[in-house]
């Protein structure tokens, strides 16, 4: 038993009821995540990846227990910050830096110059210096996602939850952001749980890869030892890709 577990999900079950029809999306899922690791979760569309992340974030009711640092959590909180896939997650009525400062202000950083300092530092990390006073509607999708990441970092959460944050970006911007996230992960002590349906993205980012099947069944759960930075030419890439691809293909049926 490892003692540096930051997240434990015990016997999670989640069902949705629509018009008297019950859809059991996640059945009795258990998993745990170690501190300062990068876990990628793959799975076919509709298998419950988003639902799992939303349960962890505290946005849904569910059966089972979720612990962060051995504390039972049912409500949302800044120990688990969610970066959504939707670009429009920033508050449009606040500037880029305003979004970050506001989150800090509401969480104990009362000194304005301290808020400013932290926000600027995080924006620098995400290559957004110079865009502090822009409003979200003046930014590209990739930049909005960068701000969301900067905001998450500023709050120093125990876990950053990312739900296909780059899925709607063009290939070039996506690669850029993947590299930046990887760098942030390597330079800071943060735990990432990153959902994707892109196999290459999972291999590139994750040091642990989980494949979920329908009903949230864990089909594959293994460490990714491929040396970073990963390219398709990396040793072991082809084998891992095939293994993940096959299990995804089977899961779909």
């Amino acid at each position, binding site marked *: 038993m490892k003692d540096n577990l930051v997240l434990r999900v015990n016997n999670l079950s989640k069902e949705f009821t629509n018009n008297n029809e019950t859809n059991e999306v996640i059945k009795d899922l258990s998993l745990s995540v170690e501190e300062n690791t990068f876990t990628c979760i793959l799975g076919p569309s509709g298998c419950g990846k988003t639902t799992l992340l939303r349960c962890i*974030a*505290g*946005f849904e009711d569910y059966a089972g227990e979720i612990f962060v640092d051995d504390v039972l959590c049912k*409500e*949302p*909180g*800044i120990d*688990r*910050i*969610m970066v*959504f896939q*939707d670009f*429009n*997650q*920033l*508050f*449009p*009525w606040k500037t880029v830096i305003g979004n970050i400062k*506001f*989150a800090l202000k*509401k*969480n104990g950083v009362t000194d304005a110059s301290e808020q400013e300092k932290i926000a600027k530092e995080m924006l620098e990390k995400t290559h957004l210096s110079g865009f502090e006073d822009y*409003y*979200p*509607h*003046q930014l590209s999708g990739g930049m909005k996602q960068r701000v969301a990441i900067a905001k998450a970092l500023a*709050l120093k959460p125990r876990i950053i939850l990312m739900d296909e944050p780059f899925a709607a970006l063009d290939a070039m911007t996506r690669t850029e952001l993947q590299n930046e996230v990887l760098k942030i992960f390597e330079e800071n002590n943060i735990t990432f749980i990153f959902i994707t349906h892109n196999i290459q993205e999972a291999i590139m980012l994750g040091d642990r890869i989980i494949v979920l099947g329908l009903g949230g069944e864990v089909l594959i759960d293994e460490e990714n030892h491929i040396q970073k930075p990963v390219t398709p030419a990396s040793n072991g890439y082809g084998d891992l890709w095939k293994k993940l691809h096959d299990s995804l293909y089977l899961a779909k049926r």
Partner: protein
Amino acid sequence: MNSFMKKHKPLITKLIFIVVFLSIWEYVSIGNKLGPKTEIILPSLGAIGKAFVKNFVQGYAGQSLWIYIGNSMWILLVGLFIGILLAFVFSGLSIINETFRYIYDFMVSIFDLLPGIALLPVVIIIFGIRVEVIIFLVVHSVLWPMSRNILDGFSSIPRIFIEAGKNINLRGLDLVLSIYLPAAATHIISGLKSGWARAWRGLISAEMIFGIASSPGLGLYINQMRTNLNNAEMYATLLVIIIVGAFVQYGILQPIENHTIRKWGMVR
């Protein structure tokens, strides 16, 4: 020249329309085209212009039109302030308490259908003819449409803003003030627009019907001009009512919109 015309086409069109309209008016008026009563029905522009000045200099019953405008605006402001404040408080409570929401939503649907002016006789029976009655009418005119807009605004806020708010530990009142209100700004501003317009109309009508001696307003003034057959003064007062309305619309509401939802990219 051509590009100048293109750029300012809306403005030029309006100006041409006004000039043509006034020319026809003057032609009909000076030429007595409506028979011997023409001067009463359509006083000449010059007469209306003189009456406009006279309204302010001489006024009625020893008081300049400024006093009447001031009285109306004061009642309007007090009523709008109370009405808007109540709309925010009640709509905010609806977010925090579900039972309250069902009841309030129901009340809004019902009272929104009731023209304030129809309610006035009842209110007067209870309170007598007093300034507070007209303030009550203004509050009634603005409270329900404003609440309807705020409630609709709240229920159409993207879920992601509320979740992002909860994620940074906002709850209860904090969530309402920091997320619900700005996120519903588009609806709130359109509520302001329709609420103020209703209140303004309701106010003038109420003053015309139940002019209150202790606080004579624009409606009372225009009604006195009518009974005394001072038709040029009547038209001049109509002009004042339009000017006040335009001032609120373009001098107050438009800047509010420009500094909020337009700046934030929430409307185009």
